[in-house]
């Protein structure tokens, strides 16, 4: 039951994010560069042996976070708090063995990695993430699967949402059977997903699908991209300087 509710909560959240992002103006910087910067940032922090580098990155990310709308800040902090506390607790024995810096370093690195990912998650739409992967030609099938999965999650999330509303409208008073209906909703959603998957595969066959999956939109290298490459350079320079 709890798992079912979690699944529905997840699809609901995805749907909400998607609706929020629907009218958003896309960033002029190539998604691949933005995803690459996040990966590089995490990588450099992981191999960095100087706390100054990690603290600087955390400071910059917190500054970016501060410029976001309150509900997004709350989501990022919610995502951040559990891993940081968990790591701190796990590393706590290190303090008693006389290595308090180890605890601090590992906790800060975890905090930085989660923060970078959470901020990226808030600033990038899932379409931009898959577009970032599609830069590599060999990834076409992977990107297609990712896109399809997201699409089905949205559509089926919406579908289960409507089923829940229907149950709610027919529910009167305080009864236990309402919780039991969650199983029925997920079952129906599963059957619907099967039908939709079959129909989509037929529609793809009708449009001569032979494994090619390319984006019509080709990102042209702009001056904003060049500026963004400066972020890469700054990250590497800071890493080398603090080494």
């Amino acid at each position, binding site marked *: 039951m709890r798992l079912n509710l979690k699944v529905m909560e997840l699809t609901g959240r995805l749907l909400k994010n998607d609706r929020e992002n629907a009218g958003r103006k896309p960033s002029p910087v190539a998604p691949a560069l933005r995803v690459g910067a996040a990966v590089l940032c995490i990588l450099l922090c992981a191999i960095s042996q100087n706390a100054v580098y990690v603290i600087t990155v955390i400071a910059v990310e917190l500054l970016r976070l501060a410029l976001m709308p309150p509900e997004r800040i709350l989501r990022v902090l919610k995502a951040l708090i559990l891993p940081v506390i968990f790591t701190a607790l796990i590393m706590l024995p290190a303090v008693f063995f006389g290595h308090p810096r180890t605890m601090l370093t590992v906790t800060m690195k975890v905090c930085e990695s989660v923060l970078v990912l959470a901020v990226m998650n808030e600033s990038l739409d899932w379409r931009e993430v898959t577009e970032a992967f599609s830069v590599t030609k060999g990834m076409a099938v992977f990107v297609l699967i990712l896109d*399809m999965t997201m699409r089905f999650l949205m559509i089926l999330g919406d579908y289960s949402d409507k089923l829940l509303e229907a149950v709610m409208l027919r529910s009167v008073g305080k009864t236990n059977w309402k919780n039991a209906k969650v199983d029925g909703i997920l079952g129906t959603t599963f059957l619907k997903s099967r039908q939709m998957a079959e129909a989509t595969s037929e*529609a793809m066959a*009708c*449009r*001569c699908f032979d494994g090619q*999956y390319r984006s019509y939109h080709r990102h042209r290298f702009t001056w904003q991209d060049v500026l963004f490459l400066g972020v890469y350079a700054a990250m590497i320079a800071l890493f080398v300087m603090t080494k």
Partner: protein
Amino acid sequence: MIQLEHIDYDYQEIPALRDITYSFEMGNCYCLEGPNGCGKSTLFRILNGLAFPTGGRYLLDGEAITEKRLRDDAFAKVFHAKIGYVFQNSEVQLFCKNVEDEIAFGLFQLGLPEDEIRERVEKYIRLLKLEPLRKRTPYNLSGGEKKRVALGAVLAMDPPILMLDEPLSGLDEDGQQWITDFIASLKSTGKLIIISTHNRELAERLADVHVRMDKDHRIICP
């Protein structure tokens, strides 16, 4: 030209089509009419190579279309490029990230040059009045918009045969009027158009030939 010779189709031993013999000629618009469950959608599935008759023969331009032949990828591609199929539920037909990608999808599969793909995408975006929607995700669109995107995606591939399954279902009055006018404008292109519909008005307005099916899953009025 499509020829059907004594087509039978059973779905789990329940008859869905019985002894269908009919020819669809190029340049005509056929409206397939009949009650629910008479086999219109099944016939469309057979015509699109998504289901195969349990009896009889289906010929497209004189070539027999069978399950075995459609297993050949090259043949299947040529076959599907000839027929454009707009599903009753457009939602299942739209699977790309945005409207532009949706229209370009089939064109990439046909292996057309980049310039031609861009030209055709722009043409159909203009023709179907999709300019404000071009960057939108198809599943976030309204029913009428989805139908227009599905039509654009299929028409961009320029198939000589166009099949539309209940093109007006789920649309409001304006949407119905727009789609009807648009299909009417396609009649002069020389394409073979087959429409499955319950809508008498649509059939009266568009059909060159009315094809009626009955509850016994047969064509009764060619």
